[in-house]
């Protein structure tokens, strides 16, 4: 606050050049002061107690021209607006406010000169002038200076904080403000608004090919096109890069929004001629509608962004709505992953073991560890149901690590019990390709004896190995230094070349069950199985068939040179505590020896398979009739079933003239009739009938077997299975 200035003068104007240099008296002193005031660049004016102008310096003349009295609120040709937006008139004027209050004031005044001239700004200080000993108010002193450039700079900075300098569109901050306003308005009026995120397709290529200058010009042109299409109250903002946001307000219908978006897509699809280059470009737009998507402004933008990403994925040059129910789906999926994490934490996971048998020697060579989830509500869940949910999540690393630790512990336990079993552990792609895996293996190696590690086999899915063959082959060779063995799992599902196989120093190839199951019916699958076995032999690797379900498959695999097998034909996966009992009771199936015997021809071998298959068929009918759920009902009538196809085809050609072959037909038809009857019986409702039909079916089967057996006099008596060695019906899937 400035104090009052004691100065009493008469009205006078002075030319800025009229400087008097020589000062000798008190009068001269006063003259000197006047001279100084008159030469100041600040406009100085003095007003009397009636608000009349009593003095003004040259700068005041320059600043106010013919309107010298404007600060005292007299109407004139100049329009001044005070900082409170009221016009500078009468008692509101600075001079009269000081006269009324006796207090100094400062105001920032906007000066409108009219006629399209730009606005200017003045800073005005007004001070009361005191007179005499009592210091009574005698007038007002005002100083005024133009601060237009200062204000404009501040305004520009302010503008820059809220706008994008390149396109002159609002930026993210201003957009956020506008969204708040628009959302409040939408709630008040009940009219929806659309938040759209627009991203140019192919902008990066433009920048890369033509340089940033062209890119920038393109962005300006895009901004212009957008502005010409949106409606009056809509907003267009640039969020950065080639990303724009649109705020479409007061939508009467979705159609209105779509109309605007379609026009935008069309407008942006027209080529841009920048620097003589026709630049082909398009845009992808993601849209979310408020208040259907009832979230805050920040989330609306994120949702629009996600929809925009979907639009890009769907092929660019289009718009996509954000779908709140998809969002719900994503969150629900996430909850399933969390559920698995909780289960592992709570100890709800366990390992089951499925035997790996050498069917030529009859030896049990090892076990594959298979993870099971004891779900508190859903019961035992198989890995096929939950592993896919975590394969792309770090959760799979925790589960994989847990499996390794448990398996090593189990190997030690078996060693202590005198059981020498190799254990296979499945490791997911994500874990393999995660940097620390070999470190973790080394850590585990330091905690376990070398003979324990030597029994560990890490099974890598073929497709995972092919994702980064260099890294995986490096991992395998480092793992082998620790004594760990490796196998390529699900072999055949990827496209390994011989070169790949040469580089991956695995001990074994495991043929996927999806090739084993259909191989007897599908020549293509059989061809794949044969070629994998051939590859394994060529590279001196062990080969394991997974998911072996029937004795036919065992025999054919043995015939093809694959001795190691896993599957329901041998044993289902079992809990740890059942393994020793199973091993104690295990005896190799004598039928396996068939494959090792000399045979006169392939057709006779087919006959053996047919016999084995018949038993399997009857087993399946009985299982199904007894309500075993995961067994599919056998399909086909007596002519189109597998046996029927053999009998009326190959069998007829070869054995038609052999005595007794024709009688087989009646037995076979009888077995079919009985099978169909059994499937309509309910053992719970009428057990007596069920058992009677079942016995009849088994009788028909045995009679048929007897006939078939008489067709092959060459077959040694000893390999025929005794009834006690026949396997009980098993369910279908082998390695779930």
């Amino acid at each position: 606050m400035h104090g009052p200035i004691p100065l009493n003068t008469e009205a006078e104007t002075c030319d800025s050049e009229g400087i008097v240099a020589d000062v000798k008296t008190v009068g001269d002193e006063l003259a000197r002061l006047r001279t100084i005031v008159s030469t100041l660049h600040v406009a100085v004016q003095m007003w009397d107690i009636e608000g009349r102008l009593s003095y003004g310096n040259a700068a005041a003349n320059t600043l106010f021209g013919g309107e010298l009295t404007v600060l005292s609120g007299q109407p004139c040709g100049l329009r001044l607006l005070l900082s409170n937006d009221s016009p500078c008139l009468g008692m509101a004027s600075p001079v009269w406010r000081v006269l009324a209050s006796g207090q100094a004031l400062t105001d920032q005044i906007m000066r409108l000169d009219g006629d399209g001239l730009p606005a200017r700004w003045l800073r005005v200080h007004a001070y009361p002038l005191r007179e005499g000993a009592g210091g009574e108010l005698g007038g007002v002193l005002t100083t005024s200076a133009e601060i237009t450039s200062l204000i404009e700079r501040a305004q520009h900075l302010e503008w820059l904080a809220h706008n994008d300098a390149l396109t002159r569109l609002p930026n993210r901050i201003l957009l956020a403000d506008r969204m708040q306003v628009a959302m409040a308005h939408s709630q008040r009026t009940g009219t929806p608004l659309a938040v759209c995120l627009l991203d140019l397709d192919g902008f990066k290529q433009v920048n890369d090919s033509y340089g940033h200058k062209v890119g920038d010009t393109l962005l300006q042109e895009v901004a212009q096109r957008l502005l010409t299409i949106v409606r009056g109250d809509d907003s267009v903002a640039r969020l950065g890069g080639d990303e724009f946001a649109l705020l479409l307000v007061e939508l009467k219908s979705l159609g209105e929004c779509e109309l605007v978006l379609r026009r935008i897509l069309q407008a942006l699809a027209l080529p841009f001629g920048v620097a003589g280059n026709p630049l082909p470009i398009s845009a992808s737009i993601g849209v979310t509608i408020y208040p259907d998507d009832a979230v805050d402004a920040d989330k609306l933008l994120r949702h629009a962004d996600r929809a925009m990403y979907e639009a890009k994925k769907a092929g660019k040059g289009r718009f996509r709505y954000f779908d709140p129910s998809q969002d719900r789906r994503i969150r629900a999926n996430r909850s399933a992953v969390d559920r698995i994490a909780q289960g592992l934490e709570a100890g709800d996971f366990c390992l089951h073991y499925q035997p790996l048998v050498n069917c030529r020697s009859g030896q049990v060579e090892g076990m594959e560890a298979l993870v099971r989830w004891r779900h508190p509500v859903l019961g035992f869940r198989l890995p096929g149901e939950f592993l896919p949910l975590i394969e792309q999540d770090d959760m799979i690393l925790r589960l994989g690590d847990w499996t390794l630790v448990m398996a090593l512990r189990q190997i030690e336990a078996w060693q202590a019990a005198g059981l020498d079993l190799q254990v296979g552990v499945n490791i997911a792609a994500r874990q393999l390709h995660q940097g620390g895996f070999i470190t973790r293996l080394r850590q585990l190696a330091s905690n376990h004896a070398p003979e324990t590690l030597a029994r560990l086999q890490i099974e890598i899915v073929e497709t995972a190995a092919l994702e980064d063959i260099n890294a995986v082959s490096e991992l395998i060779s480092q793992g082998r230094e620790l004594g760990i063995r490796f196998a390529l799992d699900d072999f055949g599902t990827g496209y390994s070349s011989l070169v790949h196989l040469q580089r991956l120093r695995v001990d074994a190839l495991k043929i996927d069950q999806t090739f084993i199951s259909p191989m007897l019916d599908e020549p293509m699958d059989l061809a794949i199985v044969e070629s994998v076995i051939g590859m394994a032999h060529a590279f001196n690797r062990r080969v394991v068939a997974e998911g072996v379900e029937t004795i036919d498959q065992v025999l054919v695999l043995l015939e093809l040179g694959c001795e190691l097998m896993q599957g329901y034909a041998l044993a289902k996966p079992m809990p740890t505590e059942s393994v020793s009992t199973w091993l104690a009771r295990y005896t190799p199936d004598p039928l396996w020896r068939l494959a090792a015997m000399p045979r006169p021809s392939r057709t006779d071998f087919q006959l053996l398979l047919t016999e084995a298959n018949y038993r399997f068929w009857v087993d399946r009918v009985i299982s199904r009739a007894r309500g075993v759920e995961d067994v599919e009902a056998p399909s086909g009538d007596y002519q189109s079933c597998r046996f029927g196809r053999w009998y009326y085809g190959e069998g007829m050609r070869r054995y038609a003239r052999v005595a007794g072959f024709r009688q087989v037909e009646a037995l076979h038809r009888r077995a079919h009739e009985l099978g169909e009857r059994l499937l309509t019986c309910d053992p719970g409702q009428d057990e007596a009938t069920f058992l009677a039909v079942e016995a009849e079916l088994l009788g028909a089967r045995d009679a048929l077997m007897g006939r078939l057996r008489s067709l092959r006099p060459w077959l040694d008596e000893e390999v025929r299975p005794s009834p006690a060695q026949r396997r009980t019906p098993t369910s279908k899937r082998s390695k779930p």
Partner: protein
Amino acid sequence: MTARTNVEPIVWQEAFATGVDEIDEQHQILVHTLNEANARLADTSSIEMLDSITRDLLSYALYHFETEERLMEESAYPSERSEDADLHLQQHRAFSAKVVAIREEIKAGRRIPRDELLTFLNHWLINHILNTDKRLGAYLVARRLA
């Protein structure tokens, strides 16, 4: 099997509702997945797309069946309506087994034709949601009112 090519998306309607909000909300997710499969799948669709849709179905089976089966247990459904409950659980297991089987086939390079997947999901919607689930819903709602 009826080909379901380029048909309109299924819009959630009151008739689908079981009356139990938690269940209905999750059913809407399935309808959404079905619509997505309808809109996006072609017989030449990439393996990734099929992979992601079937993964969604596995996930759905996990959280949704848990929700329903927990509600069953809490409401003594298995003892009060043992036949309905048995059938219900059987259908749940069959759904998961079918999806796992579809994925196994895809892995072996045999991708399920679009219409076959859509038919499977449509049948599930009609047979399970409109039938089995509505019976459970009616039971739960009646118990809550009692």
